[in-house]
């Protein structure tokens, strides 16, 4: 077990190193003079070559690739995300502020998704092929095909522009989270419903169920003790994917709804070519993913003893 855990952690470290290297080399090879871009962003005017050269030295851009990479990665290992190349302020506090907007959005989106999909999937799986099942599948398929940004725009059009019930832009009051969370949640619900439904149906078809039933175990107890854990396995597996969907959705949704979260942070950083900020978001997201996937891997093995504890 410890050996398994260590090999999973080792894999996570390899993946993180790969992400850091890939991101850094992408930004390093970005077209244009980064020092000039920083100068333009910082002074908002044309500056002399001396100033540009000074910025180049300041930002460590005159050193070679590996020197610059080390200058970035070593402080990062002790939790120092560096400072913005545009404003000169530390990246970390701004990143925390951005996350304080994204985390509630992602969490409420996930909650809405689970609250919609679990009852829907259970109802649909009650009678496979029935009208309820077929309409649930149809709605879920439609939901999976609707782009997040379009759903967001439609919800703004309906609830903010036409009906005037809910605010759409910004994040001033708690009410402002309703529309973006709904946009995110409905997208999550669409994919979760399908996965959960087929998970339940597959669990019901397991050959050991009739044997248990003949022993006289109540069907309610069978559902709880045998069907539910079985149906949970695919759900746990897709949680990593759902997290990707949540982050991806949050990026686009925040731009649409003008929420000052991680998505807006990232897009603004890219537009102003504030590379330390871009790197910080990428590394943070990768760290989140790797950690969640590691936990999922462990839960998965705990839920399904047939997955050997040796093949990592």
């Amino acid at each position, binding site marked *: 077990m410890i050996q398994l855990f260590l090999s999973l952690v080792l894999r996570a470290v390899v993946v*993180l190193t790969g*992400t850091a290297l890939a991101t850094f080399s992408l930004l390093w090879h970005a077209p244009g003079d980064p020092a000039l871009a920083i100068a333009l962003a910082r002074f908002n005017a044309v500056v002399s070559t001396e100033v540009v050269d000074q910025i180049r030295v300041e930002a460590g851009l005159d050193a070679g690739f590996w020197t610059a990479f080390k200058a970035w990665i070593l402080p990062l290992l002790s939790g120092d995300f560096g400072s913005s190349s545009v404003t000169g302020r530390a990246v970390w506090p701004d990143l925390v502020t951005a996350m304080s907007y994204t985390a509630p959005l992602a969490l409420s989106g996930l909650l809405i998704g689970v609250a919609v999909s679990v009852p829907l999937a259970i109802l649909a799986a009650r009678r496979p092929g029935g009208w309820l099942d077929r309409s649930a599948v149809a709605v879920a398929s439609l939901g999976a*095909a609707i782009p997040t*940004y379009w759903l967001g725009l439609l919800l703004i059009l309906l609830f903010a*522009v036409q009906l005037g019930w809910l605010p759409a832009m910004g994040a001033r009051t708690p009410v402002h989270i309703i529309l973006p969370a709904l946009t995110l949640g409905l997208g999550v619900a669409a994919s979760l419903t399908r996965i959960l439904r087929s998970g339940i149906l597959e669990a019901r078809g397991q050959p050991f169920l009739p044997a248990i039933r003949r022993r006289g175990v109540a069907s309610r107890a069978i559902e709880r003790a045998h069907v539910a854990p079985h149906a949970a396995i695919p759900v746990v597996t897709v949680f990593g994917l759902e997290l990707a969907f949540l982050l*991806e959705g949050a990026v686009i949704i925040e731009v649409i709804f003008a929420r000052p979260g991680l998505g807006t942070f990232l897009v603004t950083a890219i537009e102003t070519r504030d590379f330390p900020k871009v790197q910080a978001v990428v590394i943070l*997201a990768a760290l989140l993913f790797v950690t969640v996937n590691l936990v999922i891997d462990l839960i998965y093995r705990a839920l399904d003893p047939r997955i050997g504890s040796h093949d990592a």
Partner: protein
Amino acid sequence: MRSVLALVSVFGALVLLGPILAPHDPTAIDIANRLSPPSPERLLGTDALGRDILSRLLYGARWSLGLAFLVSLMGLALGTLAGLLAAQGGKLADWTVMRTTDTFLAFPDLVAAVVIVGVLGAGTGSLIFALTVTGWMRYARVARGIGLSLQTRGYVVQARLAGLSPLSVARWHYLPSLLPSLTVVWTGMFARAILGISALGFLGFGVQPPTPEWGTMLLDARIHMRSTPLQMIWPGLAVVMCVLAINLAGDALRDTLAEQDLPE
């Protein structure tokens, strides 16, 4: 398989015939008739610069569908090669390819695409690069799995011992097993590419105006949401219908494969 082929021909016809079917020039500006409602002359109305929306939708298929098709095929080629390399190339190749796959999978592909396109500069070239680089991993996993399971099968071993060249083994023994499963993955990736291209266009990182592309059209339409809400409906509807059609074709193919009990 037939449903997927039918779908591809319909989309292909749309991409090729779109410009012929379009009633107007998609970039012709007509300020006097800007934001006009649907009429017999302008079936879906005009946008903020007086350009015909129906014509822009039809021309846009070339970008939104054509580019997605190209990108998903490039991902297919890259991913299959990587997967087969992992399956055949020994332990080191396997480790390298699979850890690279993990690294790329560790990140939401759309966010990665936004970063890549944003850093390299918005445009069609970087769009193709970004979506290919972030869209090959699923093919690689499937191809590796099938490659590993085939390696030890009797007929493959025999063919190899009989002196068949690696290329012939690949053509006659690997391709027939790989093709159905990879097609299922491809339908999913094609749909994702359509969503990705329009999302990047919507964020302003994709195909640049005045080229008509569905995501970019939505970006334009969004500003005039209050006065002409219908303008925002059409490009979104086009994306939804295409993605839905591809997903349904993919589901049908997967069900057929499950009945035939082929390796997924």
